[in-house]
């Protein structure tokens, strides 16, 4: 019998429709990590809402967790849709999938404002540096000097979505690589446990349009330029695992729901709760042509957006007429005021 998790589901229960990505596309690998993470964290898919924009990446929510409600909205606006959905029913667990084009080009403004509000979401950017679905044009995360399949060279610096996320107020910021499931899955688990905007910028090679030499987002180039900050583990709140920490090398962060993230440092002396250090490290990495991966920034202090709104416990979507229609006597009162 297949292994079940704490909500009695097997890995199969986290599957979706068959993928229509190109064979070998990084996006499929990310889907696999998502399924693994949600299974491992024993999240019931029926509590999840999957959201996306438009693009190859944005198609993928259809390819995992069939039992979750999903929406494939318009290009670049998932951040806003997610804000509305989160406020409309804050009991659901929001998972957003986007592409680098979707997020860093057309969606940039709304994405920034979602983070500024610290809307609760696990927001995964499947970053391949190109527009896959429209056949390979540069996106705004295309690195300066990278080469398009046709030979065109990009003159404009890339937007570093992690640096931007930190600048705008996101409270959980990570970078990873589609091929590094060992790192990516716990990062997703942490993001889901985190209350606030969790941004995961995941390098995800487009094997069809951006895997040639000269490209800085090819599988080969990425692999050669990865620079992981730490080994990372996620320990759910119900697990009482005691971990032996090594002074100066290991770091543990406890999250609001009691989950713990443990970081085993790899060479870097890096503390993800230090905002300026995070920005400095990211900036240095760009200069060195390295992809820094791992949990880059974490802030467990800042309130999530729905807390600012002082919402009632029942999700707004589930309020009844009795709960929302004021009594007619109030209308009399107001009419009286409007007579003045």
């Amino acid at each position, binding site marked *: 019998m297949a292994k079940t998790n704490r909500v009695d589901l097997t890995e199969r229960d986290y599957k979706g429709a068959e993928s229509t990505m190109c064979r070998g596309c990084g996006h499929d690998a990310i889907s696999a990590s998502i399924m693994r993470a949600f299974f491992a964290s024993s999240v019931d898919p029926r509590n999840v*809402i999957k959201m996306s924009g438009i693009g190859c990446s944005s198609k993928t929510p259809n390819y995992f967790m069939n039992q979750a409600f999903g*929406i*494939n909205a318009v290009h670049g606006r998932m951040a806003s*849709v997610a804000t*509305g959905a989160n*406020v*409309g029913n804050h009991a659901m667990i929001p998972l957003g999938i986007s592409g680098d084009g979707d997020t860093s080009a057309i969606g940039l403004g709304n994405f920034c404002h979602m983070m500024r509000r610290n809307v609760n979401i696990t927001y995964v950017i499947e970053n391949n540096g190109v527009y896959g679905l429209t056949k390979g044009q540069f996106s705004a995360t295309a690195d300066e000097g990278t080469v398009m399949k046709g030979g065109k060279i990009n003159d404009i610096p890339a937007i570093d979505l992690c640096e931007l996320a930190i600048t705008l107020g996101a409270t959980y910021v990570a970078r990873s690589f589609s091929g590094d499931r060992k790192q990516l899955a716990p990062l997703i688990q942490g993001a889901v446990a985190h209350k606030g905007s969790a941004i995961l910028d995941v390098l995800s090679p487009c094997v069809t349009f951006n895997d040639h030499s000269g490209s800085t987002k090819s599988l080969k180039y990425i692999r050669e330029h990865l620079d992981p900050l730490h080994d990372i583990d996620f320990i759910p709140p119900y697990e009482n695992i005691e971990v032996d920490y090594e002074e100066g090398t290991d770091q543990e962060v406890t999250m609001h729901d009691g989950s713990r993230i443990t970081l085993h440092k790899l060479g870097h002396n890096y503390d993800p709760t230090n905002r300026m250090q995070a920005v400095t490290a990211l900036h240095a990495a760009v200069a060195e042509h390295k992809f820094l991966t791992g949990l880059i920034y974490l802030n467990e202090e800042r309130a999530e957006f729905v807390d600012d709104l002082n919402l009632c416990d029942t999700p707004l979507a589930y309020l009844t007429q009795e709960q*929302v229609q004021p009594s007619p006597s109030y209308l009399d009162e*107001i009419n009286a005021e*409007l007579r003045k």
Partner: protein
Amino acid sequence: MSVVNDLSICVATANGSGSASSNNILFKSIFKMGIPCSSKNMFPSNIQGLPTWYQIRANGDGYLGRKDVIDVMVMFNDDTSDKDIYRVRDGGLIIYDDTKPLPDDLKRDGVQYLGVPANALVQKHVEAGPLRAKQRNMLYVGALAYLFGIDMETIREVLSDTFGNKPAVIESNLLCIQLGYDHMRDNNLSQSIAMLETIPGGNEGKIVTEGNTACALGAIYGGVTFCAWYPITPSSSLAEALERYLPRLRKDKDGKNTYAVIQAEDEIAATNMVAGAGWMGARAMTSTSGPGVSLMNETLGLQYFAEIPGVYFIIQRGGPSTGLPTRTQQADIQLMHVASHGDTRHIILIPHDMKSSFDLARRSFDVAERFQTPVFVMMDLDLGMNLWGSDPLELVQEPFDRGKVLSQEDLDQQGSFARYLDVDGDGIPQRTIPGNRHPLASYFARGSGHDSHARYSEDEKDYKETLDRLRQKYETARAFVPKPLVEYDADNNAGVICFGSSAEAVREARDRLRASGLETNHLLLRALPLSEEVREFMAAHEVVYLMEQNRDGQMAAIFREEFPEFATRIVSILIYDGLPATAGEIVRQVEQHREAATNGIETKVDESWQKQIASI
């Protein structure tokens, strides 16, 4: 003096000069005297120093549309005086500040001038300070009060209603009003235009409010739980009214909110938040005006095609582009009708007064959830931001219509669920909302092609089926949306159709036409799609005057699209200079058409319409 209670006063001041307050006192005082009255605020798109006009109409017969002519001009803005002297009718009255003598070029024949040395008086009697300049406006209130017989006691009442807890403000205002009053009295100044007389029991029980407030209250009673909006004149005051009333009306027992109002970063965010919240099952709305609709265009198509409810309050202003943001128009009709790319047709509800603003706002959420689609509530600046006397708002108590939402139990019973299947033959599919944990419940919503099970599909049959069902849904809506209000007498050959803020001016225009021998029937349109009743009205008349406040006859285009067989019966009456419609202009256009028709200059109705467009 023969005329009683028929008067229009126009106050010309500069924005930010404090006149908002004095105009309000003036208007409320006349209202409190029991005289039917309305006010039109022609304010600039600016905060301080640009010209603003406030036009009050007091009319014992109850006509509340803007009056064609100005009887009294309060000329308190030097920047516009050269034009203002010509705005007043022959035989009218100009009140001005005669602290300094009137320059010669502001002297005009055929009108009476009365001065009040407002500057001099406030300098003398009011303490120096930032408020003094503003207080100056109170003087014309006093002057008018004396001249036209506005009751000082009533003014005092209004002052205390308005500034209830600030006795010092009441006193200083009163002082200034009295200064104006006394100046007129002491100098034996008088006019012979009209007098205002208290109507006992008049306006009894009535309220004064603007459509935006009425809509906000309607939305609250309609159970709105989610609003995302972006500031824009003239719609901001709707969302701001929500923010004012909601904390009072909608806290749960723990003091927590049963609503969320989000000031979005732009209209694109607002519409997508509405889509997200509507998808979750919240009663979601936004309010905006023309530029906002343009920006929301893409996501309106998503909501139409993925069938996500949402209510869009559109307070129209002068377009195109930024246009005249503080003037009124009804020129976003076609945009709303077919909003977004591809084949779309949208439901539009059209209030025409305060009560229907409240009522249709409330019902709009039912319509949106019943039809699982964005629903427009079409307002305009005149209706939304001007003050209107009205019967009190009234709550029709009826259960919310959440539409075809299936619960877990429903799914158990039904045993199957296909999100986009037309189960009932009315084009409206069934819906589940997230949080429904039944194994059949979940589905994937999308703006791309899909089959009846909400599965991705590029199949031409699935696609056409979806498009046809959506059209079917629109057809179903014809019988469901608010019916028009019709006045009909089989003897009349001519009909008049109007909607929204034009209703008052049209009522008056019809009375005048009747007086000059043309009896008309009337249809007040309250929704799109056009219903059978509208078709019948069209069928019953040889000529139908369709009055709207835009240049291109946008509603007429929709009528011609939907009723080709009656296309030539429509004669467009078009007012689109940004000012609220007047009966006089309507009458003028109708008579011009009738003359042309009888003189045979223009034989074909439609051609006269074409010409009119081309030549004005």
